[in-house]
């Protein structure tokens, strides 16, 4: 299939048909790419995920059309408008076309504004669902009652990010763990704090990410929607063992979650997971040359260390 556009200022019927067919083909390709886009992302395991993925799919389709259009013109020009060998002459001097300029200013303007409005709506929805609601001024009610629990009947989890470990505290159940356990379809409010440097809490399957900033406590809501084991990664560079600063997130049924909390509360405190501490201890014997590092914080003392090596769903 090759498009055949007009060589003169007037378009022949055949070239219009060919151009329309090519555009139709591009549209089909774009829609198909938009569908494919879902497969490039991890499983959807939170209320935010379908909204983010829908937006990404839409932009993939639009982007495919734009990219495909530009590349089609480039390919056409390279095939059809090459100078003949030994042809040293110039082409016909077309200086510009104001109507075209107006069109290709207006169309992208409308397009990107439409995308921005769509994205802003998703922002608003996400804010109501939880994950986008974070930095806000504390009201007197909150000062008296702690978490904004009256808006969402959320489980409270305190997340402490350190160089380099994650600790999850469940104040209601008096449990601490280095593996995050959440009940499916129940909103949860994290209170994010850092003892040392910037960190980022990032759970790809939930499509959420939030920097953890020393000196601030950040409230952050989300609702998991799929049972399974997922990865939580540090997303803001935090020093030597940044890459190893990962934890697992287990989403389980409400009943299992209650059982886990009760069993965990009976466990004695022990050292939680800290790959950094383990590697740092081995480093003494290592012959590999390294540069300076701050030592890792000691592993947090928790009821349940959990695991960060089991197979996970994303």
């Amino acid at each position: 299939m090759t498009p055949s556009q007009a060589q003169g200022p007037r378009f022949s019927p055949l070239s219009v048909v060919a151009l329309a067919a090519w555009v139709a083909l591009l549209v089909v390709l774009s829609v198909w790419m938009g569908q494919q886009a879902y497969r490039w992302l991890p499983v959807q395991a939170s209320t935010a995920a379908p909204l983010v993925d829908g937006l990404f799919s839409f932009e993939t389709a639009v982007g495919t059309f734009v990219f495909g259009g530009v590349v089609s013109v480039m390919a056409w020009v390279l095939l059809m408008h090459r100078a003949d060998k030994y042809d040293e002459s110039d082409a016909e001097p077309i200086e510009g076309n104001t109507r075209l300029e107006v069109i290709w200013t207006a169309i992208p303007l409308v397009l990107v504004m439409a995308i921005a409005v769509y994205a802003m709506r998703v922002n608003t929805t996400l804010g109501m669902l939880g994950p986008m609601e974070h930095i806000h001024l504390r009201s007197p009610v909150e000062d008296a009652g702690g978490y904004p629990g009256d808006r969402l009947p959320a489980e409270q989890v305190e997340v402490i990010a350190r160089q380099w470990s994650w600790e999850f505290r469940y104040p209601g159940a008096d449990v601490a763990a280095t593996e995050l356990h959440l009940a499916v379809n129940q909103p949860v409010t994290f209170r994010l704090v850092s003892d040392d440097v910037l960190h980022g809490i990032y759970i790809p399957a939930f499509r959420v990410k939030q920097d953890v900033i020393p000196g601030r406590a950040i409230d952050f809501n989300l609702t998991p929607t799929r049972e399974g084991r997922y990865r939580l990664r540090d997303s803001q560079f935090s020093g030597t063992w940044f890459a190893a600063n990962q934890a697992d997130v287990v989403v389980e049924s409400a009943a299992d979650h209650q059982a886990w909390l009760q069993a965990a509360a009976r466990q004695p405190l022990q050292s939680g997971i800290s790959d950094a501490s383990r590697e740092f201890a081995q480093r003494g014997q290592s012959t590999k040359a390294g540069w300076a590092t701050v030592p890792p914080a000691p592993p947090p003392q928790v009821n349940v260390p959990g695991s960060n090596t089991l197979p996970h769903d994303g």
Partner: protein
Amino acid sequence: MTLATFPASEPKPSWTRYFTFNTDAKVIGIQYIVLAFFFFLVGGLLAMIIRGELITPEADLVDRTVYNGIYTMHGTVMLFLFVFPVLNGLNNLLIPTMIGAPDMAFPRLNAVAFWLVPIFGVLLMSSFFVPGGPAYSGWWSYPPVSIQNPLGHLVSGQGLWLTAVALSGVSSIMGAVNFVTTIIRMRAPGMGWFRMPVFCWTALAAQSLQLIGLPSLTGGAIMLLMDLVAGTSFYDPAGGGDPVLYQHFFWFYSHPAVYVIILPVFGIFSELFPVYSRKPLFGYVYVAVASFIIVGLGLVVWVHHMFPSGVPEWMRNLFMFTTMLIAVPTGVKVFAWLGTLWRGKIRLTTPMLFCLGGLFNFVFAGVTGIMLATVPIDIHVSNTYFVVGHFHYVIYGAAVLGIFAAIYHWFPKFTGRMPYEGLGKVHFLLTFVGANLNFLPMHPLGLMGMPRRVSSYDPEFTFWNVIASLGAFLLGVSVIPFLLNMVSSWVRGPRATHNPWNAIGLEWLLPSPPAEDNFGEHVPVVLSRPYGYGSGEPLVEHQAEIEAALIQAEQLESAR
């Protein structure tokens, strides 16, 4: 116009002038470019180590501390010691010759700005050898991790890094003052704003951004240095400081810095597409003016780097809109280049291939750029390999390819020798394939959730990382034909005429290489817009006589 003004009758200047405090912009331009390519090799070597480490999931090639130092220095070297200097080199070569000026407005300041580059380059390189190793907190250098100073010494890698970045800022400000003044004050008679080549428009736009933005970064870096060595608490929460404040200082400059890099590359595309399509630039006025719309918008988008940092909802929405708007003037330029190619007489020379490849990569980067501007998508992919893929498409895929195009295109003008086409095409092929193989796999990795800056990763990311590493090694190989071409053409390439590409522009009315003072007293009077391909109108008064004199001088030279 007499033959006496041409260098054919002058003694050949010694090559040793490239190692001296020379005030000729053409010497300084070549000094910048050669030094920048030295650091391109250093930064490239560091990239090879990064991709070597990432070809397997475990941290096994180098220690994690070493990996962090190397990725930090890769970004720093490539930006501050390669991209900015190489573009300043092109500015030095092209601005005076394109506008018909004898030199830059402040030649000695120009030389000082250049000589600061090797000084801070040595400073930065020396940080590899201080106790504790070089800076390791990324080229953003976010506090508090950047002020942790594990050994507690007064002289640390991070301290040297900050000093180098501050000096780089000073050098760039000096350069910007010079370029802006030269373009505003020293244009040839008859060269009104809308008779000025687009490269000069984009250089003026980019250098204006430097003047507005750099004080923010330089000031921010000095405050960080104070926190590091003098115990202040500008950004240290332990002392009441705010680490997020630094991010504002940093991105207020460092986002516009992307436009400082890409605008001159837009200029290069706008110069070269007309030459190799044999057509005027489509919509010249729109393309020129769009540069300044990009400047205005580029200054109000920086928070899009901080969407997950904890900024309020209204700020996220506002900066999403401004970021989206940048697509409009950028789109105007892309469509103008397509309009220029359309029904042209395309010549696939090496510089043209690099431009077409650069345009292809740039449009792809534009698509992922819109995705990144969208707050909910950005929340998922920010600080992942998706971003790394996106900006390498911009910086390597578009900007570096554009820089290569410029070097091949203007090489004959400033060396007097022709580069070899065959080697150039091999270089293009390896670069284009290598860059796409290297940077495309980073997008699926980021979508899957692989954070950037990691020295190890989960095994599910292995497949795409192996492909990316192979692409990187191909890019490593691609510099071999380039270096071979540059060295052998400069030493013994065929002699270049004054206008080997049959291009239109004041610089092509000078001999190759031009005399030290370019046109000297005989600056031609500009009669028309640039890019008059196919119009048959002369660019300057007495154009036929000037060209005849140049040809006569060339014949005299070859007869000797």
